[in-house]
C-alpha cells in the first residue's frame, strides 16, 4: 500500500481538524499560541476557526488545516490479541453450543488482599468502564467469593462449584505478594486436578505483566484496563479449544 495523507474533500489535501484547550485567557496572543501548537503538530497553515473563553483562565480552540505528515500503512505494527473479542450475545451463544450448560466462573481475591475493586469490576453486573460484568452474561454462572480467601478455600469452592474457570485478583504488590500468591494458587490447582480437568486459571491486577502467564503457572494474565468482555471472550476461546 502506498503512502497516504488525510482526506478532507480532495485526494491529497491532508486536511485534519483538532480541538484543545490552552490554560490562558482568550486574546489575540492566545489564538496565535493555538496556531503555533497546531503548526508544531504538523498542521500548516493552521486555521484557528473557533476560540472560546472558558472562565478567566482557559480558552478552547478548534483548528483546521493540512497536515504535512504522511502515513505508511505497510510499516504499521499492531499487537493482535490471539482471540476474537465477542459481544455478550455471542459469548452466551457459544457457551451454550460448546458446553450445553452454563459456564461456571469462581472469582476471589486471595491472600490478605482486601481490594475487591478489580474482581468486582470484572464480575459484578455493574461492571467497569460502561461494560457490564460477567454476572450479566446469561450463560455464565458467577460465584464471587470476595476478599481474603485462602488458597485451600478457593480450591474447595472450585471443586464444589465444578468451576470451569477461576479468576483471581491481586492488587497489593508489597514484597511481590501478588506473584507469590499466584504461584501458590496455581500449584494448589495443579495438585488438586488432573491436567485435563483443571479449571482455566486467570489472574489479574494493575501491576501484573501480561507475558508472565507461563512463569506463574496460569492460563492468562490480565493487566490494567482489562474489561469484562476481554475476560469473557478469552474464556470462550479457551474452552472451545479444550472441547475441540
Amino acid at each position, binding site marked *: 500500500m502506498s503512502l497516504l495523507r488525510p482526506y478532507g474533500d480532495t485526494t491529497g489535501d491532508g486536511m485534519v481538524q483538532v*480541538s*484543545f*484547550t490552552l490554560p490562558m485567557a482568550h486574546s489575540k496572543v492566545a489564538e496565535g499560541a493555538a496556531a503555533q501548537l497546531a503548526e508544531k503538530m504538523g498542521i500548516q497553515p493552521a486555521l484557528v476557526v473557533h476560540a*472560546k473563553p*472558558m*472562565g478567566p483562565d*482557559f480558552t*478552547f480552540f478548534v483548528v483546521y488545516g493540512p497536515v504535512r505528515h504522511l502515513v505508511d500503512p505497510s510499516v504499521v505494527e499492531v499487537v493482535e490479541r490471539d482471540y476474537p473479542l465477542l459481544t455478550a450475545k455471542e459469548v452466551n451463544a457459544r457457551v451454550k453450543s460448546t458446553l450445553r450448560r452454563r459456564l461456571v466462573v469462581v472469582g476471589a481475591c486471595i491472600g490478605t488482599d482486601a*481490594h*475487591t*475493586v478489580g474482581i*468486582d*469490576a470484572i464480575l*459484578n*453486573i*455493574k461492571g*467497569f*468502564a*460502561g461494560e*457490564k460484568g460477567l*454476572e*450479566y452474561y*446469561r450463560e455464565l454462572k458467577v460465584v*464471587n467469593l*470476595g476478599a481474603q480467601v485462602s488458597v485451600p478455600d478457593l480450591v474447595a469452592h472450585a471443586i464444589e462449584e465444578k468451576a470451569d474457570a477461576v479468576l483471581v485478583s491481586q492488587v497489593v504488590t508489597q514484597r511481590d505478594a501478588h506473584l507469590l500468591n499466584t504461584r501458590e494458587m496455581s500449584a494448589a490447582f495443579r495438585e488438586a486436578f488432573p491436567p485435563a480437568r483443571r479449571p482455566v486459571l486467570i489472574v489479574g491486577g494493575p501491576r501484573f505483566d501480561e507475558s508472565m502467564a507461563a512463569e506463574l503457572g496460569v492460563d492468562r494474565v490480565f493487566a490494567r484496563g482489562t474489561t469484562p468482555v476481554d475476560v469473557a471472550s478469552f474464556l470462550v476461546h479457551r474452552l472451545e479449544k479444550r472441547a475441540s
Partner: protein
Amino acid sequence: MTGKLDLDPVLVRRARALARQVGRPIVKLARQHTTVSVERATLRLAGLSGADPDGTPWVNRLADAVRADAGLEHGLALPVWDALVRGEAEDLLVLAQKAAAGSVRFRLPDGRDATRAQAAARRQVGAGIRRIDAQRKTRERLIRTIGDAPSQPWIYLIVATGDIHEDIPQAQAAARAGADVIAVIRSTGQSLLDYVPEGATREGFAGTYATQENFRLMRAALDETSRELGRYVRLTNYASGLCMPEIAALAGLERLDMMLNDSMYGILFRDINPIRTFVDQRFSRQVHARAGIVINTGEDNYLTTADAVEAAHTVTTSQLLNEFFAKEAGLADWQLGLGHAFEIDPDVPSSLRLELAHALLARELFPKAPLKWMPPTKHMTGDVFRGYLLDGFFNLVGALTGQGILLVGMMTEAVVTPWLSDRDLALQNVRYVLQAAGDLQSDFRPLPGSFIPARAQHVLGESIDLLERISEHAPSTSGAGLLDAIADGTFGLMRRPPDGGRGLDGVFRKAPGYVNPATDLLEGTS
C-alpha cells in the same frame, strides 16, 4: 395534573395500591430487624467519630466489642450507655478505645439500669438529631438569603478526581460554569466496604471516598462559591452500599443536599443481602426525611443492563416501589428525585417518541416529584460528534417533560473522564436547548390516542402486570413476595435470594426490648 397522556386514574390508583401491597411486607420485615450499620449510624449521631491507628473507625470497634459481649439483637444503645452510666469511661470515644483494648465488658442492663441507660442514650443521640435539624434550618436560611437555583431543571454536574483537594476547585469551577448541583462520585468499591473511611482522602479509584471530613470540606467550599454566585449550590453524594445508614447520618450532619438512595440497587447490582438493604434503606430514608435531603433513585441502571424499550416498565415499577418506601419512611413528594434515563438505542425507529412517552409517563405519574433525568451512556460510542447530538435530544426531552434534575450528558462518555472543554460544551448544549425550547412544554400536548399516549399507557399496563405478578408471588420462605421475586430474577437478570449476598452476617432480628433512640426519635414514637 396536566393529563397529557390521558392516563386512566383507576389504573394509576391500582398501580399505587399494588406497590403498597408489595411493599408492606418488606416494611414489616425492615421493622423486625436491625443491622450493624444502623447501630453504627446511631453511634455516629451520638457524636462518635474518628478511627484507630489502622484506620478502623471507632464506631466499628465499639460495635464489634458490644456484639461480642451482648449481641446486637437488643441494639447497641442499652449496653453502650449502660457502660457509660456505670462509669466505665467518661465519653463514647474513651469507651470505644477501652472496648478495642478489651478492658471493658458490656452487658444488657435491665430494670432501673436499663431505664437510665436508655435515657442517657436518648439525650446524646437526640443532640445529633438536633444538629441535623439545625443544618436543615441553615440550608433553608442560606437559600433564603443567598438565593436558590434560578430555574428548573437543576443542572447537575459530576466531579470525580479521587482527591478531595482536586475535587474542590473542579466543583467550584463547575458551579461557576452553571451547575446547580455538584455530585462527587465515590471511589469504585466503597459500597462494599463495611466501614466508612475517615478523614480527608486523596486516593480513590475513579472517584473520591465518601467521608465525613470530605463532606465537610466540599460543603464549606460550595458555601463560599454559593455566596460568590448569589445562588445556593447543592451537594450530592451516595447513601448506598453496606454503610448506607451511616453515610446518610453523616450527610445530615454535614448538610449535604441530595443523596443517591435506591431501594433495590444494592441488592441487584452489588449483590448486597436483600434484608440488609431494606433495613438500611428504611433507616437512611428516615434520616434523609428529617434532614430535608432530596433522594435520587437509581432506575437508570435497569436501562443500562436491559433493553430500554423492553424494560421501560421495570423503571415505572421501581419508581412506584421507591415512592412507597420513601413515603413510608417519611419523605415528602418534593424529596423524591425518582430516576429515569434516555437510553433507547438511537437506531430504533421513533426512539425520540418513545423517550418522550416514557419521560412524560414518569412526569404524570409523579406530578409533584422533582424527577432525576439521566443522559445516554449505553449508546455513546466514542463518536463524540454523534454523542453531542444525542445529548441535545436528551436535553430537549428534559425540557419538554418538565424534569426537575438534569444530569448533564458528556459527549466524551465512555471515552475519558470529562475534560474542562467537555463540560463547557455540554453546558452550552443544555443552555441552548433550554433557552431555545423556552416554555415549549406548555404548548406540547400529544394528540389523544396518538403514539406517545398509547405507548405510555402500554408501559403503565406492563408495570401493573409486573406488580401483580410480584404480589401474587407465593411468599414461601421469606414472608414477602417481593423478596421471592428478587430471588427469582424478576428484576434485571439477577437472582438474589434473601439468605445470600454481602452483609447478611450484619443483620439481626430484633429481640423483645430492642432499643434504638435514633429510630424512636426519627419515627416520633417516643
